[in-house]
């Protein structure tokens, strides 16, 4: 009860609440007197009340222009609206005709319309977009190959490569034959001239049939003087005479043909020095290869390719012929050696020793 009584009376603990209610005019007469008495007792708090009173918005009175709402002005507005709809082309055909008639007769309406027409923007005004290209779009179509198309493409590529490969090989083969013929003709011409090839200072291309671990067609360009030494060294190093036989049996078929017509055998038989005969016979292979008369080694390479070619039936037959002719030649050479030196070239097993250097000690 005492707290309620305290709340109804203004004191230093609740005066702010009373001040706000006073400002908002929410206090009754008795309470207002109570506040005024409190302010008289505490004049220092009057300033606080005045500050609160200053936050109240001042009362403003407005005079609305009632003329705008009068029926007369409403009529003008309706005309305005019609004219606006007219310029916006939003009227029906009937309404348009009525407005057009009114405009023809009423100067005020016409003036109003002229004023409104000034607000219309010029539709012909053009403002171009600076870069239209950036707005265009292009879609990329992905062309999907079907399976049969893919297969066809692969076959086409393979066929193209095949044609290219075979055409290239056939050209090589033709060139090799032509080069071989040329070499044979050249050799014939050279052999017909009595020139001692052994002493020829010109370098020769010597094709040695090397041991199996070496390349079968290894080429060396060596001077003829060195050639003999090479050949001898080769004979010393060779593990068996059979390898030399193989080496001698190597020459190309062209030489086989040449040998039938050439008097080379006779020349070799009438040779005075046994070593030179043997050497010449062993190095006979060198005659099978063309003497280098130019720097162009292509014909040679091509010829070599034809010799190397395995599985060639004709080449095998020619090789067998060559074997027989070389054997015969070697037998003749052996007999000659036997006659001259008195050494039996056949060993105890009845094998013919070829390539063995025999020196008679007397």
């Amino acid at each position, binding site marked *: 009860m005492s707290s309620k009584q305290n709340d109804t009376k203004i004191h230093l603990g609740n005066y702010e609440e009373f001040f706000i209610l006073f400002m908002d005019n929410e206090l009754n007469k008795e309470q207002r007197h109570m506040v005024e008495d409190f302010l008289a007792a505490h004049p220092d708090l009057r300033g606080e009340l005045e500050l609160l009173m200053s936050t109240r918005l001042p009362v403003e009175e407005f005079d609305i222009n009632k003329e705008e709402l009068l029926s007369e002005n409403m009529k003008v507005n309706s005309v*305005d*609206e019609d004219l*606006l*709809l007219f*310029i*916006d*082309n*939003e009227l029906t055909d009937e309404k348009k005709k009525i407005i057009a008639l009114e405009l023809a007769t009423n100067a005020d309406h016409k003036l109003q319309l002229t*004023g*409104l027409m*000034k*607000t*219309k*923007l*010029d*539709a012909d*005004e*053009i*403002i*171009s*977009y*600076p*870069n*239209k290209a*950036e*707005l*265009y*779009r*292009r*879609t990329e179509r992905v062309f999907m190959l079907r399976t049969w198309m893919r297969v066809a493409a692969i076959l086409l590529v393979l066929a193209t490569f095949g044609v290219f490969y075979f055409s290239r090989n056939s050209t090589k083969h033709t060139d090799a034959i032509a080069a071989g013929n040329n070499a044979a003709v050249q050799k014939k011409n050279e052999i017909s001239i009595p020139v001692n090839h052994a002493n020829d200072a010109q370098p020769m291309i010597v094709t040695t049939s090397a041991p199996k671990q070496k390349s079968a067609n290894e080429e060396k360009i060596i001077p003829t003087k060195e050639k003999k030494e090479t050949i001898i060294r080769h004979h010393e190093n060779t593990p068996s005479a059979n390898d030399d036989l193989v080496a001698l049996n190597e020459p190309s078929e062209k030489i086989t043909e040449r040998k039938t017509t050439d008097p080379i055998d006779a020349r070799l038989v009438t040779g005075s020095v046994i070593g030179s005969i043997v050497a010449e016979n062993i190095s006979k292979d060198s005659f099978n290869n063309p003497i280098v008369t130019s720097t162009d080694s292509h014909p040679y390479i091509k010829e070599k390719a034809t010799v190397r070619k395995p599985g060639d039936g004709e080449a095998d037959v020619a090789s067998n012929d060559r074997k027989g002719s070389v054997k015969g030649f070697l037998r003749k050479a052996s007999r000659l050696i036997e006659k001259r030196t008195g050494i039996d070239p056949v060993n105890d097993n009845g094998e013919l020793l070829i390539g063995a250097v025999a020196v008679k000690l007397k």
Partner: protein
Amino acid sequence: MTEKEYNECVNLYADNVYRFIVKNLRHEEDARDVVQTAFEKLWRHRNEVDGAKSKSYLFTVAYNQMIDHLRKVKKITLKEDFREETRIYNRPANNLKAVLEEALSKLSETQRSLVMLKDYEGYSYEEIGKIMNLSESQVKVYLHRARLQLKEYIVKVENVI
């Protein structure tokens, strides 16, 4: 809509959309961005957009994009408006077109857009309502107010001179 139809839309409407936006924003680069975005959206939704309605679609997208842009740069726009106001007195007022431009700049974005869509593009109230997401009666009232405001401004300037 096919690719060809889309590119045809670029040819036909790019300038119109750009004019609509650049007059509202009064900033070329921003206007270009808005137009580009509108065409990008058209391209992305080309399968759903009917070719005959592509113009309205472009204007709708561009308008919404522009409103978004204005919300982002509201303060800058207010500053520009202030500058425009100061420029009015320096321009030759006898040129009606220039005065009308100034009057147009005084309007709100909505009012300005309404006037431009009506006068430049010739859209009906209904079409404008669809583009700007307003009812037909709203379009009518807003547009009328805008016209009267423009008229008032022009008359005022003429009287001053």
